[in-house]
């Protein structure tokens, strides 16, 4: 399979994730969308790594997965905290941090 196919898939996934972040109104869905974007990037890394014939892409992917796991843990904890505070998961409800 040529590299282009991987990249197209990766791009599609990234677009789906971005659209999710921009359009959905649920913090948990937002987190999920971010995970999709991260995995789209992972796919691109692995594909490039395979094409280059080395393992760097795979190593970075592991790092990204670790960070993603940590981010998910922190993110979900924040979401629970926010929910307890406002009884809502809509990000538009949390706009008081401004001038």
């Amino acid at each position, binding site marked *: 399979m040529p590299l282009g196919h991987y990249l197209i898939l990766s791009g599609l996934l990234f677009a789906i994730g*971005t659209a999710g*972040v*921009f359009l959905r109104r649920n913090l948990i869905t937002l987190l999920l969308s971010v995970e999709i974007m991260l995995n789209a990037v992972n796919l691109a890394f692995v594909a490039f790594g395979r094409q280059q014939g080395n393992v760097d892409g795979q190593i970075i992917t592991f790092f990204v997965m670790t960070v993603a796991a940590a981010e998910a843990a922190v993110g979900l904890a924040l979401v629970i905290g926010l929910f307890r505070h406002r009884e809502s998961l809509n*990000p*538009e409800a*949390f*706009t*008081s*941090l*401004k*001038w």
Partner: protein
Amino acid sequence: MLALIPLLPLAGFVVNAAIGRRLSKTVSGSLATGVMALSFVISVMQVLALTGMPAESRQIVQTLYTWIASGDFTLDLTLRLDALSGVMILVVTGIGSLIHLYSTAYMHEETDPDYARYFSYLNLFCFFMLVLVLGSNFLVMFVGWEGVGLCSYLLIGFYYEKQSASDAAKKAFIVNRIGDFAFILGVLLLIVTFNSIDFTTIALAVKQMPVEATFGTLSLATLLLFIGATGKSAQLPLYTWLPDAMEGPTPVSALIHAATMVTAGVYMIGRNALLFEHAPITMGVVATVGVVTALFAGTIGLVQNDIKRVLAYSTVSQLGYMFLAMGAGAFGAGIFHLYTHAFFKACLFLGSGAVIHALHGEQDIRHMGGLKKHLPITYWTFLIASLAISGVPFLAGFFSKDEILFETFLHGYQVLWVIGAITSLLTATYMFRLVHLTFHGDERWHGVASHEAPHLHDAPWPMAAALVVLAFGSVVAGYVNIPHAWGGHTALNQWLEPAFQATNCGQPVTTGELAGMAIENCEPGEAAEAGAHTGLELGLMAVSTLIAFGGIGLATFLWLKNRHIPDRIATQYPGVYRTLLNKYYVDEMYDAAVVQPIKVVSTEGLWRGFDVKVVDGAVIGAGYLVSGVSIVLRLLQNGSVKTYAVSTFAGVVAILAYYLWR
């Protein structure tokens, strides 16, 4: 040895300034007086050494160190004593010592620290004056020139708690500054022209140059120097500080008026006699300004009621005489008058100080009178000095004033001679108005609140001693320069001649005492010429003697016998009287022409206009600009996480797009 003359007063200043407040009055007073007396003794020794030298090399030079060495321009800190500066240091240290002595008694009511402060200033003043007259180039002279300005500021403002005193001090300083500015410009022009500011070098260079018929570099330079002299020596139009300088303690007035400071301008012209002689236009200006100042100040002196102010205007007037002599080319006569004037003016001021002292601060002559029998020593010394300044024959002022008028006439300034003669009449009149109103007539000081029951006491011994010595000097000082018409040799003129000409006639000299100073006729031509005018000189002498007695008689008639006449004249011509009383409104004119415009420009233009509007406007405007822009920009921070995410994304896309398609 020569350096000790100025350094002794400096040492006195340092001691009194540093630890004076812990010394008793006796110690600090006698220290200050002692160093001056010692300095006088050394001056006498040095001048005597000078008389022992042949006329062609009659100078003592002491180079302390090289001050400036820049390229081919070098400047040494050099002191030089020659005939001219010899006369000056004798006047400064001699009269200065007497004034110090007098001050020890006069200032006795001050507190210890003030007393020490006073004497430290007095010593510093003499130090700077000695530097001024001993300096061998313009820069050393300028140090002294500025220094006496500073000290006059300090001393005039001695009672600085008094508003009028601190104002007068500032006025003296600022007016002097104006003159000094021109003086600096003149010196700079000389540096550019001659590449040297050593007096001798310039004089020798000038000698090779032709006399300037039209207005050229020399005329400009000398004119600038003369403007400096008008500031320091209180001539029109910069004389206004001197009458106000009366705010200082009276001995200070004596010091400023007689021995130091105001004589600086006259001395400076004498020092550069050759330079000025090569600029006849400037000489004309000098003579005219001098004689006009003399007349102008004389008329003001006629109506003033403050005893010290009358004397102040008389000083301005007498300085005018000196400048008249300088401008007429009679440098010897000018310096001669400077020297005799030092005696009688110091005596007059110290005498007026004794009067003020006895009356506990009263200075208005309308509240005096009849003091003759209460203050005999003061009266007799004051009278002698008044006779001397009026030009009564056989006293010091007669010789010097006559010399000036005679030389003026001889050099073809007949118009100026007439004005000078009129001024001479005025001098005699206002001086005897002062004498009559102060010492003769009714005792008008009874019942004036400030001294309800005065226990009048004559001057204590230090004051009396100074007065007597000065009165004695007022009598005999003139005899060093007996005119040709009297069979004399004008010894002082002969003695000074080499200093003015930067040359010497090479005659061997046999000298010793003052009287023996007469050199064989240096320039036989001039001597013969002077001799040829014996008749003229005697005639002019007779005229001025008549004038002097006329003035005294007029004053006696008006202010002693018929006091209602001057009052009636004053009421009949109120305009003239008020103009004179208000000193021709010169202060008011300066106020309107200079002070107020500067105030208005500063307040409305520089402060409210430039500072508030432009400077503050720029600073405050920058603040408003930032906050104004921020009002718009802060709308971007709306707290919505999604908006931030979109912005971040758009930014990343934009950056990537730039790199991909650039």
